[in-house]
């Protein structure tokens, strides 16, 4: 187990350098004017130009200069110093304010996926080919097929503006109620995937040989399903939900943008819209790290849940 974690950690370190290098190279390499690249089409003031040149060591040139700047960027990233956005605010502070909101939102979304998706998935898996099963399959197909840029604004319009069941937008410091609708919208996709995954997994495990063994021991059906089948079926589901939590933290760009939730995705959304290069680079770098770490956690979780992996 220990060796397993160490191995995954080393893999993560490699992936970290690889990914950040790619991000960095894509943002800066081969640009005529890197400062203009950061600023997009906005005019750059002399003060900003000086700040960016110093911040990203743009005076160094050549391949050596590129790596010099890359390691500079990495060490800043590791120290948590993400620099300033074009509006002059510290990106670190922006993120510090944004994370709690994003995490709250992601947790609501995951809770929605677990409570409805996994439960319905187990039922559908047990009663395969029933009306309930077919109905959930069709519904999840609909949810999976409708893009978030359709779902989020429409939910906001109908449930928020027209019928006023939920607050249409959330303020600077959103409470649970304000985050509920965005959370459901954000979680609906995870819900649909979790449901389908659970259904397939349960249906497959119900046919497994060990289920026959458990029945031949004279265990009641409830116990066979709730202990033997579920414990096996939930391994891929829990793994998926872990990956999904990582995705949701970085992937709430649309939902947070539409509902005006001041989370990480919202700031990224705004950074893209206002063409604030440093803000986008900073947030994307942090999100990449979050993504890598969440993948590591999920791998370890998988090993904890499945003894066949643990003792490989």
């Amino acid at each position, binding site marked *: 187990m220990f060796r397993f974690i160490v191995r995954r950690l080393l893999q993560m370190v490699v992936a970290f350098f690889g990914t950040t290098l790619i991000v960095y190279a894509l943002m800066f390499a081969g640009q005529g004017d890197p400062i203009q690249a950061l600023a997009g089409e906005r005019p750059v003031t002399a003060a900003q130009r000086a700040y960016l040149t110093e911040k990203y060591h743009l005076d160094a040139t050549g391949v050596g200069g590129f790596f010099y700047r890359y390691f500079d960027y990495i060490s800043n990233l590791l120290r948590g110093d993400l620099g300033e956005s074009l509006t002059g605010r510290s990106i670190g502070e922006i993120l510090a304010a944004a994370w709690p909101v994003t995490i709250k939102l992601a947790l609501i979304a995951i809770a929605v996926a677990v409570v409805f998706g996994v439960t319905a998935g187990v039922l559908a898996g047990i009663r395969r080919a029933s009306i309930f099963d077919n109905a959930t399959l069709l519904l999840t197909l609909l949810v999976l097929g409708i893009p978030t840029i359709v779902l989020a604004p429409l939910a906001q319009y109908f449930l928020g503006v027209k019928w006023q069941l939920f607050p249409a937008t959330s303020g600077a410091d959103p409470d649970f109620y304000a985050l509920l609708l965005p959370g459901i919208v954000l979680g609906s996709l995870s819900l649909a995937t979790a449901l389908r995954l659970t259904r397939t997994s349960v249906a497959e495990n119900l046919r497994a040989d*060990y289920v026959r*063994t458990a029945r*031949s021991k*004279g265990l*009641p059906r409830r116990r066979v399903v709730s202990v033997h089948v579920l414990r*096996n079926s939930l391994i891929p589901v829990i793994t998926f939900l872990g990956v999904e939590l990582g995705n949701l933290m970085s992937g709430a760009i649309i939902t947070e943008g539409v509902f005006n939730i001041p989370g990480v995705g919202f700031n990224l959304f705004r950074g893209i819209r206002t063409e604030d290069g440093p803000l986008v680079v900073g947030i994307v770098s942090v999100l990449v790290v979050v993504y890598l770490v969440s993948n590591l956690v999920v791998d370890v979780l998988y090993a904890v849940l499945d003894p066949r992996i643990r*003792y490989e």
Partner: protein
Amino acid sequence: MSQHAVQPTPASPTPPGGHLLELRDLHIEFRTGEGVAEVINGVSYHLDPGETLAVLGESGSGKSVTAQAIMGILDSPPAHVTSGQIRYQGRDLLTLPEEQRRQVRGKEIAMIFQDALSALNPVFPVGWQIGETLRQRLGMSRSDARRRSVELMDLVQIPAAANRLGDYPHQFSGGMRQRVMIAMALAMEPKVLIADEPTTALDVTVQAQIMDLLADLQRNLDMAMILITHDLGVVADVADRIAVMYAGRIVEHADVRSLYRAPAHPYTKGLLESIPRLDQRSGKLTTIPGLPPNLMDIPGGCPFHPRCRYVQQVCLDVVPHDLVLGDGRTSACHFAQEVRDDRAR
């Protein structure tokens, strides 16, 4: 379809209290979108305390389905028991409510399966899986169940049993896993043990060890055992009686000695001739031509007739009844006498 006469199973006289386990004219169908397959067509056999019955047949002959029907663990759909009785200690298990039926499982009749790796739950330690039966069914405490699990693992000769309680199935070798499976089946000291191809997935040397273990346990614990196998070589030393199945029927039923000496059904004869014999060097190994029938379309008359070398017109037209041959033997062949007396190989 059912032209069989329901007959008492003749291999031994019914004891005063009745047989321990008795199947009477069992019929099972598999109903799928493709059609209906008649998997079991009137199987009758019985088991008395302390004896070993071998049920022999090719895959698809219905031997495992019969066993699962006894256990009551057939998947339904697609399986449906359409008629017949499974009597255990005088009660028909098929008419029992599920809750009472469940009580029989594991405690009265236990079963071990072919592939222990897939038959054991991969995510629970073996000690937990053995103990689960004890805790759930006998209400043992955690520590009692643990102690008893070690005893059971010792009983099936797993070395250093106490240290291996926390290991997972995939950490055991094939033979050891099958021993775990056996320990689990023995947990509640069943009166009947059904072993469904217990050695098929194992190496030849390990096969012998497991068969010896089963034979010892059966003797020492005074269990009755149904040994399901497709391997005639395996059963000779262990079984008291043999029931040979073909296409969902029992085609021959005899004690081991008579059956080996003089098989009375062409199918059994074919099976015996297809195993190599040391005492007959010159003898060519023969095989039975053709394939077992499609169970959705069993041939009319005797189901074996397309592959039978003794076939006559009557075999195409009339389903043979069980012919009682004396010595408590039966054979579902129109020419059972002739086949038995035809020693030419």
